[in-house]
């Protein structure tokens, strides 16, 4: 299934793999903090997308350093599935907005233990 992949271009090697790791970890952590601290459903959603893209970046970086295409294929799948998730998520948010006229998650308190 794998074909002969060309060697890693010099321009990619100019940045060490650690830098990608640190960058994507930073993006991931920013995403997590966003999810945990923001109150607007759309902003939380954007933070989640940031987390997904951190994973994408990491996969691409590993994939090009290992000269293995499967990481990039995985990214295609993540993008496609994330789009489906976006569609469903936005539909849910719009549904809630129609019913309550707000998307602040603090407003959602019908269910409590």
């Amino acid at each position, binding site marked *: 299934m794998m*074909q002969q992949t060309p060697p890693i271009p010099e*321009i990619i090697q*100019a*940045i060490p793999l650690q830098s990608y790791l640190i960058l994507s970890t930073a993006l991931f952590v920013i995403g997590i903090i966003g999810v945990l601290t923001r109150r607007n459903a759309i902003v939380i959603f954007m933070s989640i997308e940031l987390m997904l893209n951190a994973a994408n970046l990491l996969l691409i970086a590993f994939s090009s350093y290992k000269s293995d295409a499967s990481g*990039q*294929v995985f990214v*295609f799948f993540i*993008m*496609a599935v*994330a*789009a*489906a998730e*976006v*569609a469903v998520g*936005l*539909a849910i948010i*719009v549904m809630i907005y129609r019913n309550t006229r707000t998307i602040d998650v603090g407003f959602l308190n019908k269910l409590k233990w």
Partner: protein
Amino acid sequence: MLSDFGIILLFILAAIVLIMVVLGASRLLRPNRPNEEKLTTYESGEEPLGNANVQFNVRFYVVALVFVLFEVELIFLFPWAVVFGNVDLIEQTDGRWGWFALAEMLVFVGMLTLGLAYAWRKGYLDWVRPTPQVPHTPSPVPPALYEQLNEKYAPKVKVP
């Protein structure tokens, strides 16, 4: 010697510095006399109406969702396109590879088409037009009489 990324960094820095210099210079040189007309938002010459933070009609939203879905699913065409035209694979398999790949992609696109057909049949693609409300006044005079009056007294305008 600078590496390739060093040059990019220089470009970024130069861009920032240049913009700051230009904006700063104009700020120092220009006279500052704001009035209401000048401070309004520029909307290609139109008079701005209301808040920019208005709701768009819901019908944009459904179409946008359907668009996002179909657009993003098509990223699978890119890796497919890379192997579809692969000369080695085609030669190794006597050209059967091309047909196989084409069939696979037809199945995929067929699935998407089914989804589109479903959305269409459900009416999600219909552009919901507001039905025009014809004002109706309960009047004893039939409309035909008005027509006659118009015919008789309306000034004949020659359309050039």
